[in-house]
């Protein structure tokens, strides 16, 4: 994870038509921890939600073969169950709940060592890529994290 660059997913472990599993390792050091919190570093809950959203986004990108860009539009029933500190290896899962017209709903979940960390239901709008640079960047990032068939 590169928290300050919002690069939350390190590696895709598995992807199928309706689910994706990825790994994300919390860095030992990050400017984020300087404020959250001094002397007691914790990954902010909003960044855990972002991590679930990114896993969901990669799932949707794989499903549409990078034809459209997913944007987070809604978060329901988010539960942040455990603190996450530096060095923690997270397993991030996203599964498709519903594929609608111009949007999708996913279930996101993060665990560490078999322990539930957080979960939420996420709504993402899917829109045509607004800029070719974004599409190229998403394809490159997806290839870097091993999203099969992304290149």
């Amino acid at each position, binding site marked *: 994870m590169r928290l300050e660059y919002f690069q939350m997913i390190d590696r895709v472990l598995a992807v199928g038509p309706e689910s994706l599993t990825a790994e994300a390792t919390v860095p030992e050091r990050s400017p984020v921890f300087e404020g959250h919190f001094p002397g007691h570093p914790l990954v902010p809950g909003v960044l855990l939600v972002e991590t679930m959203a990114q896993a969901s986004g990669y799932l949707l990108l794989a499903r549409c073969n990078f034809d459209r860009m997913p944007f987070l539009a*809604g978060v329901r029933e988010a539960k942040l169950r455990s603190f996450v500190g530096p060095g923690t290896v997270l397993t991030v899962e996203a599964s498709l709940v519903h594929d*609608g*017209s111009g*949007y999708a*709903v996913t279930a996101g979940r993060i665990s560490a060592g078999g322990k539930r960390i957080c979960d939420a239901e996420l*709504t993402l709008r899917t829109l045509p890529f607004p800029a070719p640079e974004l599409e190229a960047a998403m394809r490159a990032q997806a290839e870097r994290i091993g999203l099969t068939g992304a290149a």
Partner: protein
Amino acid sequence: MASAFDRIADIIAETSDVPRDKITPDSHVIEDLGIDSLDFLDIVFAIDKAFGIKVPVEAWTQEVNAGDAPAEQYFVMKNLAARIEELVAAKAAGG
């Protein structure tokens, strides 16, 4: 079973903060009920689930924006209910 209009009106009342008794067959979802695009997304999700269909809201929006259809055709409650009934019938017919 409740009519498509009643089911959709119930969904809107449950999903947004619009009182159920304010929703009439002639209500325009956006102009009269004040539903914004994000609330409408939640409503469409609930309709998709309740009726087992995929409301083609993107195609509808494109038609309206292109001037190929009046907004009322899709976004006035009685017409929206009629469109949903058509989609349900098409699905039942294997369309």
